[in-house]
């Protein structure tokens, strides 16, 4: 981010110049078509979603839709399955986005900086390949990896370690791992870009001063890429919060509801139980969770060093 150049903040109380102020609204003209499109195709459905969340709309089994006020939200807070979904969503997000993708992405990016070109190219290609694969395909790949007759257990057997049905015993860990496997590339790319922006002179100076690798990383690298960390965390979290296909393909939220994160719970309510109104209300609550996370990151990014 090129924030170094000091842009004179346009003061709001500019001395009254006899300039044509009438031109101001015209500046918006080129943006108008795009704005209208956004409102129509993005704002419209979202507004409709908000409306549905306050009704008892059903996919089947009811001929009319009535406005029910806050019923859906009250129901959600009294619903054990909803609470379970919230907890699992937090676990899934913390494990796979905050801890997994972020740390692994940063580690890969840092290691690749020092690696030789062929190693870098190969690693990058492998990691990015996992990211390029469509979500549902990745889901099936990882299902094949984790299932009882799958690759993981074959490996464990070969090593003489006890195998188990991962998708049954540790479903939320299995899907978290899958999400890490699939999403790390994004973090890696963001951090690679950030690390390459750090001026060599600074690190070299620190090296001359006798700072070890870890200290250099902790005191120079991390503070300098703080903004990228914030941005990356936010994008990652929002992506992870809405992961559906991966979990659906691997476990369908099961066994029981032990890997039923909010998006899967939403789908189950809206389409398996036909309660579209309730499902949409849960979707809005999911949006709130996302907004909360975003606000925390924004605060973290705002503090100037």
């Amino acid at each position, binding site marked *: 981010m090129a924030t170094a150049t000091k842009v004179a903040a346009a003061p709001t109380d500019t001395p009254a110049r006899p300039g044509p102020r009438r031109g101001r609204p015209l500046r918006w003209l080129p943006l108008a078509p795009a704005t209208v499109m956004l409102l129509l195709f993005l704002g419209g*459905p979202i507004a409709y979603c908000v409306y549905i969340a306050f009704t008892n709309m059903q996919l*089947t089994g*009811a*001929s009319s839709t009535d406005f029910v006020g806050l019923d859906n939200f009250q129901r959600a807070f009294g619903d054990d399955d909803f609470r379970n979904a919230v907890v699992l969503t937090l676990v899934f997000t913390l494990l796979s986005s905050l801890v997994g993708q972020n740390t692994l992405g940063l580690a890969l990016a840092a290691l690749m900086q020092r690696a030789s070109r062929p190693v870098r190219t190969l690693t990058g290609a492998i990691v990015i390949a996992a990211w390029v694969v469509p979500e549902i395909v990745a889901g099936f790949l990882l299902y094949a990896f984790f299932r*009882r007759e799958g690759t993981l257990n074959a490996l464990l057997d070969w090593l003489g370690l006890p195998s188990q*049905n991962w998708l049954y015993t540790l479903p939320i860990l299995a899907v978290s791992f899958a999400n890490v496997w699939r999403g790390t590339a994004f973090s890696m790319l963001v951090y690679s870009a950030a690390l390459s922006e750090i001026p060599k002179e600074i690190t070299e100076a620190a090296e001359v001063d006798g700072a070890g690798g870890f200290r250099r990383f902790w005191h120079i690298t991390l503070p300098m890429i703080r903004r990228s960390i914030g941005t990356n965390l936010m994008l990652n979290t929002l992506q992870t919060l809405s992961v559906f296909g991966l979990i659906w393909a691997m476990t369908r939220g099961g066994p029981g509801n032990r890997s039923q994160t909010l998006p899967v719970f939403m789908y189950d309510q809206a389409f398996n139980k036909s309660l579209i109104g309730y499902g949409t209300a849960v979707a809005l609550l999911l949006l709130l969770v996302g907004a909360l996370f975003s606000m925390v990151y924004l605060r973290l990014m705002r503090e100037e060093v």
Partner: protein
Amino acid sequence: MRPTAPLILAATLAATAGLTSCGGGSGSDPDTVKVVYNRSTDNKIRFKDNHLAEVKKQFEKANPGKKVKLIPIQAQDNDYATKVQQMMRSPKTAPDLVYEDTFRINSDIKAGYLRPLDDYLAKWKTWDQFVDTAKTAAKAEDGKTYGVPDGTDTRGLWFNKKIFAKAGLPADWSPKNWDDILKAARTIKQKVPGVTPLNTYTGKAPGETSVMQSFEMLLYGTGEAGGNPLYDPDAKKWVTGGKGFQDALGFLRTVYSEKLGPDISDALDPNVGTTVFSEWLPEGKLAIALDGSWLGQNWLKTGGKPWPEWSKTLGQAPMPTQNGQAPGQVSMSGGWTWAITAKSKNPDLAWKFIQQLQTKDNAVTWDIVDAQIAVRKDVAQDPKYTSSMPGITFFTGLVKYTHYRPTTPVYPQVSTAIGEAMEAATAGGSSPEKAAKSYDDQLKSIADGATVAASGQG
């Protein structure tokens, strides 16, 4: 300097956009019938597709200038229903003809997705050939008929005679009550290690498969003959989880806790139904399967898993009532119907296509290739049908003892609640009483309080 705020906004909007989806539809053409049906998730199984393609050819030949557009949806039953319901919501995407499971049809009728066929049926001679139970399969609470059934099914016990011989059990095995089944399963567990003694589906993942094939087969065998353990049609009320309900859960719990069934993680796999007929039974890994009349179709030369010896290897036995009380046997029946959507632009042409599907030859061929139990008198007597498949006479004979599921709009929701109770009792470690209790709570909210305590099962 905060360039991130718009970024957040954009990211949030993008994330929200994923939660709302819209589908574009094609306009309708007055000379084309759009037919939606479910395609098997097993890529080797295509007899429905082939049969429909054949009927389409006949139809287009008989009606020059008219076209049939077949729209297969390859998905599990639950997902298929969801997809079709969404298509039927909008005139842009609504097909003309849909293949509807009788178990959902009342729910879709209530939602106003389908149109009554009474005017057409009144002028249709062939309707007299349908047996009465089939005629009511798609009859709604308003007394109108909304679908034409093309077959039905029954359920019973399949067992592997070779494994039975190893365990010292008779080849003409016919259990008289639930205990006999458990005894046989325990014997097999003891004497033939490495084989799963008994498969009874359980849990939410297999969907209606576990509710109907396993739980209801047990539930309808509890209590007295002629009882209504699930729904009381006279009072129009749902029956809460009483003794019969808990006993049925108890049976399943026994099967899984004594390890007489498959590994619970396999049982909760959504594709377990396919695994049973494509792997476990043909490979001799499963001794007894409580399953449907249609299994045989998969092992024919044309099926997904040809298995020439199946009719010699497998025997069939009726499912007994809990303690052998009258009538002694129990079966459940479902079936699928062809229905015309409310938003269809070409209902008349769609009706013509139903008639084409129901010419006698087509009806016979269909019941044979799909291993369905005939619902038409003329088809049931057709020698081609009666000699089509070993065991078809056995399963047709079960029609006398069969029960149909409650034909009410909320049944699919009740079914989901039953699936959850089953999962709690077999995999979740909760007692049948506790599982029945949480079923009751759900039932009250689904049925808006229209429930009645189980009677005569004290």
